[in-house]
């Protein structure tokens, strides 16, 4: 069995976040986690090629990277493609997901990867791919890769795949029918009794989904409108007075920019564990474009730029946090009479 394996710059041994721009490379044989995967897949399995790419490069040049990978993998005669584990590295997850899904779709080669359930790559690719639930801890690497191998073998053999809980993958959000022994009435009453007793129960459907967001009507006249900037890139005043966390932030802050034409590096820092923050640190306008907005306000294009910008950190942030953060921000937006918001997201 021939396997092709995809890793990012860190797991490919190039370097950490500062090398996230590393270009696409094709290396012979197994590198990093691919070695473990090869071992766990058994004697007749070989990782013939390890693909390495910097996370930023992969995300920013997704189309070119995917096309180049498809060409190589097509020629490789691979039986299986594996990627990750990506844990909670969001760009890694997106890149791995994009590559695996393209290979699966275009070349018909089964793919297996692993991510933390909150990784944005999951929501994007869960339907197409089998994504093993990796959690966030790299310490679990061996167990995760073992689960990937077990499931990978089934996919190659085209055996039926069991339910997520049994096989260790993240729910793909798909439905299949099954005729069982218990009537719906019995299942419903069983569930209620467990719920009333405070016991664990397995709902047959979960109430979570992204409900469509109704589009607010456009701003008719920007020269009369009050505009506010919000960012989830974690830009905070030096010292991070509100102690906004760099991961799974539970807080947000409002920071005064009245009278400023420009955000200065010495006044700010970045609390965000998910990207290389050097460039924003050097010039915070690269995240909160105050300079451009102030010009537009002075020339009358924008009626008024609100004297504060709001900030939080979007990294690995579960919906349970972000829904609340968003609601709280909306209350302030309404209180302050803001008409329009620009949200900059990393």
């Amino acid at each position: 069995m021939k396997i092709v394996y995809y890793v990012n710059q860190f797991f490919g041994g190039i370097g950490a976040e500062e090398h996230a721009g590393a270009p696409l490379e094709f290396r012979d044989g197994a590198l990093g986690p691919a070695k473990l995967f090869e071992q766990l897949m058994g004697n007749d399995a070989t990782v013939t090629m390890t693909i390495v790419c910097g996370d930023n490069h992969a995300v920013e040049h997704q189309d070119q990277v995917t096309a180049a990978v498809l060409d190589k993998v097509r020629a490789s005669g691979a039986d299986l493609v594996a990627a990750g584990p990506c844990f909670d590295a969001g760009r890694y997850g997106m890149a791995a997901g994009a590559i695996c899904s393209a290979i699966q779709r275009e070349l018909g080669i089964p793919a297996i990867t692993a991510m933390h359930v909150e990784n944005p790559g999951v929501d994007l690719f869960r339907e197409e791919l089998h994504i093993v639930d990796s959690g966030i801890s790299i310490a679990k690497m061996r167990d995760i890769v073992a689960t990937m191998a077990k499931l990978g073998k089934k996919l190659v053999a085209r055996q039926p795949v069991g339910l997520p809980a049994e096989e260790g993958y993240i729910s793909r959000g798909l439905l299949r029918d099954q005729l069982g022994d218990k009537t719906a009435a019995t299942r419903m009453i069983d569930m209620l009794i467990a719920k009333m007793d405070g016991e664990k129960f397995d709902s047959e459907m979960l109430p979570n989904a992204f409900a469509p967001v109704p589009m607010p009507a456009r701003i008719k006249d920007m020269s009369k409108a009050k505009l506010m900037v919000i960012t989830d890139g974690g830009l905070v005043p030096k010292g991070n007075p509100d102690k906004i966390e760099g991961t799974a932030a539970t807080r947000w802050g409002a920071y005064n920019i009245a009278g400023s034409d420009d955000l200065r590096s010495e006044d700010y820092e970045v609390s965000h564990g998910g990207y290389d923050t050097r460039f924003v640190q050097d010039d915070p306008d690269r995240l909160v474009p105050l300079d451009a907005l102030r010009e537009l306000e002075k020339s009358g294009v924008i009626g008024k730029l609100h004297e504060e910008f709001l900030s939080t950190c979007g990294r690995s942030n579960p919906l349970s946090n972000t829904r609340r953060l968003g609601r709280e921000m909306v209350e302030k937006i309404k209180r302050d009479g803001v008409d329009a918001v620009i949200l900059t997201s990393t």
Partner: protein
Amino acid sequence: MQLTLAVHPITDIQFGTRLSLDGSALTVDGEELHRLVLEDAAIDNVAFDIVRPGESCRAGPIFDVVEPRAKADGGSDFPGIIGAPTTAGMGTTHVLAGAAVSVLAEMSPDPSRSATGRVLEMSGSATAGSAYSKLCHLLVVPQTKPGLPRSTVLKAYRVASVKVAVHLARAALAQAPASTQTFEPIGAEDKSREGLSRVVYIGQIFSRQRKPAVDEPIIYGTNTDGMLPVILHPDEWLDGALVPSLNSWFGGTETYFYQNHPVVLDLYRRHQAREINFVGTVATVAGNDNVDRVRQCHAAANLAKWNLRADGAVMTKYGGGLPHADLSETARLLEHMGIKTAVMVSDVARDRRVESALLFNVPEVNAIVYNGGNGTEYEIPKAARVIAAKPELAALLAGPMTIDANNIIGVTNQQGASRMRSLVY
């Protein structure tokens, strides 16, 4: 308030000269039935047929399936439809268990959704999920006068369904039943179950997605127009107070499963076993707009909370997709009043994706039973016998053909009878 079911198991139905029950063999007089059904001026002619489990035969479209039952001692059968509209659920009712009266329609109920309508299949792998394939059915094949309005035609089917069902069960009145089932008393008076969780069943019996016909019988013969939620004793559900709307919905609701209501019967069983205190039920209607929904949901939730003093509620819906909003809103209100809920929804996800299945997004409504069926098709063979009201319908049903599981009557059901669920993977 106490109901006793006198149960007579039926293993066969045959035509003969006289209606009679001999052991478990029921004999019906076709001519007598003919006269009975033609009492309705809307019906020009009627044919009857008998189908048995395991036979290679098929019938459809099915209007409704009714279990033959008759009240003893002057009780009212199907109050408000044929009997006086007194309260159901008291006294003795004789039941021909294992038998059914199934009325065929002369047209597909919803041609845009399916040409065949609901099909009764008596053998083969498609029957695995349906309780109806294990019953002996007396099929009623009516021929209504041409040119009648649709609601008049459907009303005629409704009346015929209950008249024939009651008539058949009268054969048992003079016989000793094989067994009787008397239901434990339930309600506010029961001091013996203090400390057990108080559970209510809240069931939608109609959806205002459609306007009912003026004379459409649903609850005690009334059409539910203007109705607010009402407290019913569980025995009322079991004893003829309710029939489905004249217009069928794909989710599946039959009189048979009001009479044999899976939720009510299971709650009774656990009440009897002293696992819960089954305190009562609320019958409600899914609203026709947002204002109506608020009215219905608040009323139903408050009946459960303040009149029935519920600790927990199980809930079913009626109709199509929109009533899920009523279901979830009522459940949300209950949860906020400290009442735990579990709800049963219908599968509307034709693309087999969970996102398409989620008709509400209320975090507190997190105990959900998911009736499947949208993703399953059966290959059914050519049937040796096809019974239908018109030759073109018979031709449509002949087979071999592929049929959605939703269209095999009994596989999907909104009253809790279905064993087909959708798994998330």
